[in-house]
């Protein structure tokens, strides 16, 4: 139990996951397991574009998400997707949460 708490705290002290918004975005992308448009994420979270861009850039720099221009039914949009590294981290995070419940 103590080990799990320590690991969870260490995980959340990582620069990329030290923000609840970034952690939440990463977990949501894990469950969606596909591309989400930048515009949809911004509308969902109701935060300024610049803030969302900063959060996503931080996640991208750490190799947790990838974003690119993609063709969607509404035209060409910036789309975001979780990477395998990101999936591994969220998977471990959820294991820890499950163990602590």
């Amino acid at each position, binding site marked *: 139990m103590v080990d799990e*708490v320590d690991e*969870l*705290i260490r995980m*959340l002290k990582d620069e990329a*996951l*030290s*923000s*609840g*918004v970034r*952690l*939440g*975005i990463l*977990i*949501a992308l894990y*469950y*969606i*397991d*596909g591309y*989400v448009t930048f515009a*949809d*994420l911004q*509308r*969902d*979270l*109701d935060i300024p574009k610049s803030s969302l861009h900063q959060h996503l850039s931080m996640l991208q720099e750490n190799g947790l998400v990838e974003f690119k221009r993609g063709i969607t039914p509404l035209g060409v949009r910036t789309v975001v997707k979780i990477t395998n590294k990101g999936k591994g981290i969220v998977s471990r995070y*959820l294991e820890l*949460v*499950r163990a602590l*419940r």
Partner: protein
Amino acid sequence: MSSDVHEILRVSNVTVRRVLSRELRKAMGLYYLLWGTYPIAIAALYTISYEFSVIESVLSLRVFSLPMMSIIIMMAIAMIYAFLSRRFFSMAYRVSRSPIIVNRRGRYWLRWVITSIIMVTTIAVYPILVGLGNAYIEYIPAVVYATLVAFTNATFFKSGFIRARYYDYLANASFIILFPLSLIYYFGYYILSLIWIYAGARSLLEVISGG
């Protein structure tokens, strides 16, 4: 745990809920819209097959009877539709099993396994029963199948990420009532189609308006 960690966990839970509630509702809207076009796709395929004499050509081979051919076409299209809606189901299933949900009730995996087995069995038995030519024997598996589809759809709301609206109840109740009845009164498929398209449109409007 320090208050910082608690704050990160609290904000992340709020963020996850905000994103997933919209994405799940959007997926559900697309699911309604997709299956709302199913009777139209069947009708279009029949019309094309009839006008280009495809049905006559296949019947002349004397391998399939007309009812059996109809079932094969309907199931082939249903499989394509099921493939297209797999994303919705897989996302909803993953979310329903998430440890971040606090109001989980029941054993979801068991419910899913039982529902899947009954649905697959019903679908597998259906063409055999149709071959016997008894309308009531067709009707019973249709009722079971419709109930299971509505039951499966209802479980997605139990994660608490999306709230069931009146158009969800309308879509699912109409499916249980109209799907089996459509075997006798074919226009029921088109009413069902309209209701599901309406539910899909309302769901997407809910996402756009942020409701």
